[in-house]
């Protein structure tokens, strides 16, 4: 009998092209997603070396990072951003790569449209010049972020030379309570294992709490894997996965579908397979979380407080002091007493239809606090249309939220959506690094429901006590 293997090992083994002695194994890449920020230098490299894109049919591009979220058709005033978008358009044309451009009905954040179009499928290897490529692991694929040199490598060879990562299983027992979301699970995990807790590992999320998540929730969880340092995060494909993929534009059809599902059913980790590390968690211990510092591991329950230095290891004191100084927070301050100026609901972490439904449910019948500016940025044009069909945009607009066009927006502030110095933001995005959302801006990471509630209350508030209207 063959040795039991993990989900990761099955995908890795199936994609080994060559194992040259003394060198990193060469792994085949099924799907390469491309965007405007990390690709121009890669296409330049191809041109310089006289190379082509080896597999244009496995390469898909969109614009997301630096595009404005003003109504489409508004001229891009940032000329350098416009030049970068024009470079992607020209490169896609020259190299024969399919581009979902600004005016395309399929445009959206690269990690939102991959799954939405059915490009993302179980068992695949997927890369993109973006660290949040880990998102696609939600489908039981091996998906990871790469730098521009590796983007060029994949464009040229459809392969990557990769050292084999270690494996970590994070087993989350029990069920998430009402008001506790995949985002809180992700923040809870990072808070426990730290922002470098999974460096060098591919995480497989398992357990009832993970199985119980929708595909949107699974994407949120896998998306944040990189914030724990992981190479990738993944979840075994199951009926939830198949139901999501079925019928999507690029999903297998007809007889191909049955064959694909049969293969996918063989992917989950075998009984008795060994992981290099196992972390166990109890879902019942989780609650809605709010980050208070300048990395996603600096997190507290909404009912908790900004930490006192005395409660922390001495090796963490300096980083904590620097973080609190940047965030303008006093040690010991109650999280619910932290007032906010801005709210951002969006990003590849939390901009999908389920996220918008959850936020709209909270916002319904209320109005955004007079001192808060709040924006909702759907992850894709398809999500925007779906939300508008359901009337979610009406709820947001009536409540005083801005309803914008799709893109990465204020998650990283490469476009005009940025915080002003000192502004404090409740954000559904993935990084609260210094200056991430704008120089001097102060980011607190939360779930979509928690962000919507904070917009209305003007400060953080426990969603578990919310009076839904």
């Amino acid at each position, binding site marked *: 009998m063959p040795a039991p293997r993990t989900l990761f090992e099955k995908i890795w083994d199936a994609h080994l*092209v*060559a194992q*040259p002695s*003394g*060198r*990193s194994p*060469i792994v*085949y890449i*099924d799907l390469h997603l491309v965007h405007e*920020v*990390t690709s121009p*230098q890669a296409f*330049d490299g191809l041109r310089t*070396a006289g190379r082509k894109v080896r*597999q*244009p049919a*496995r*390469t898909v591009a969109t614009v997301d990072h630096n595009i404005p979220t003003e109504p489409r058709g508004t001229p891009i005033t940032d000329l*350098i*951003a416009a*030049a970068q978008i024009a*470079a992607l358009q020209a490169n896609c044309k020259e190299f024969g*790569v*399919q*581009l979902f451009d600004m005016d395309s009905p399929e445009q959206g954040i690269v990690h939102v449209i991959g799954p939405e179009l059915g490009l993302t499928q179980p068992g695949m290897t997927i890369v993109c010049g973006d*660290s949040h490529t880990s998102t696609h692991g939600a489908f039981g694929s091996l998906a990871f*972020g*790469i*730098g*521009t*040199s590796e983007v*060029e490598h994949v464009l*040229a*060879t*459809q*392969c990557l030379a990769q*050292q084999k*990562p270690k494996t970590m299983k994070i087993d989350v027992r029990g069920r998430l309570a009402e008001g506790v979301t995949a985002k809180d699970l992700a923040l809870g995990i990072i808070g426990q294992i730290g*922002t*470098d807790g999974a*460096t*060098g590992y591919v995480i497989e999320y398992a357990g009832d709490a993970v199985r119980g998540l929708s595909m949107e929730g699974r994407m949120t969880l896998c998306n944040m894997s990189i914030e724990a*340092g992981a*190479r990738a995060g993944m979840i075994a494909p199951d009926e939830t996965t198949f139901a999501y993929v079925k019928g999507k534009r*690029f999903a*297998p*059809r007809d007889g*191909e579908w049955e064959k694909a599902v049969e293969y996918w059913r063989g992917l989950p980790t075998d009984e008795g397979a060994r992981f290099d590390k196992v972390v166990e968690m109890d879902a019942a211990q989780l609650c809605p979380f709010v980050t208070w510092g300048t*990395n996603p591991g600096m997190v507290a329950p909404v009912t908790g407080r900004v930490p006192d230095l005395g409660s922390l290891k001495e090796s963490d004191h*300096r*980083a904590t002091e620097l973080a609190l100084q940047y965030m303008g927070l006093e040690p010991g301050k109650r999280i619910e007493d932290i007032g906010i100026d801005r709210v951002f609901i969006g990003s590849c972490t939390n901009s999908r239809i389920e996220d918008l439904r959850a936020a709209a449910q909270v916002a319904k019948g209320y109005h955004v606090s007079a001192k808060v500016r709040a924006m909702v940025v759907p992850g894709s044009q398809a999500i925007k249309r779906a939300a508008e069909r359901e009337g979610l945009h009406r709820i947001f607009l009536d409540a005083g939220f801005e309803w914008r066009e799709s893109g990465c927006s204020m998650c*990283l*502030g*490469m476009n005009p959506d940025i915080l002003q*110095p000192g502004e404090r933001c409740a954000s559904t995005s993935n*990084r609260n*690094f*210094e*200056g*991430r959302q704008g120089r001097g801006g102060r980011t607190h990471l939360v779930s979509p429901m928690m962000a919507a509630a904070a917009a209305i209350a003007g400060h953080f508030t426990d969603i578990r006590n919310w009076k839904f209207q």
Partner: protein
Amino acid sequence: MTSFGDDNDVKPFRTHRGRVAPLNRINVDTDQIIPKQFLKRIERTGFGQFLFYDWRFAADGKKNAGFILDEPRYAGASILVSGKNFGCGSSREHAVWALTDFGFRAVISSSFADIFANNSTKNGFLTVRLSESEVAELMKRADEMNDYQLTIDLEQLEVRDDHGFSAKFPIDEFVRHCLLNGLDDIGLTLQHEAEITAYEALHPAPASVEAPRA
């Protein structure tokens, strides 16, 4: 150095001696190394001026007083020493381009984020992993001594100074080989053209993926 007739050759790294600058922080993320407003350039060059921009410059573009790299005694430093989990966050290779363009050849830390470490290798920039206590010792020496210099020897896998410090560091053997020889690994992968073609014959692109609009 490569024999693949490639234009993407990487500068080989064998032994480097240079001035050391200490950046006493942990979890230095790539957003700090190069803030997003500088990622819109479509070239690989010219990023050094933006290195650690928000720490080095005030909002009005004037230099902040007291940032470590701007202290005269660290001028021309080519080796950075910093706390654990260096290079975490965004995959932006611009972070490595900014460090190299500024004049750095290597960074020493007790741990590095995976994507940052990969990106470094591709640019002939060395990530040297030492223990936390060794990093703390180097940080102290770079702080206390004037013109503190280190030698990083990739052939001997050793970091040493003129004051009795020496430490071995680990590195993947293939990565070391590429760095020593300045190899472009696209060229190396393309040596396996036959295997790639054979793999593709068995695994054609899914039929339902539409042909691109050329």
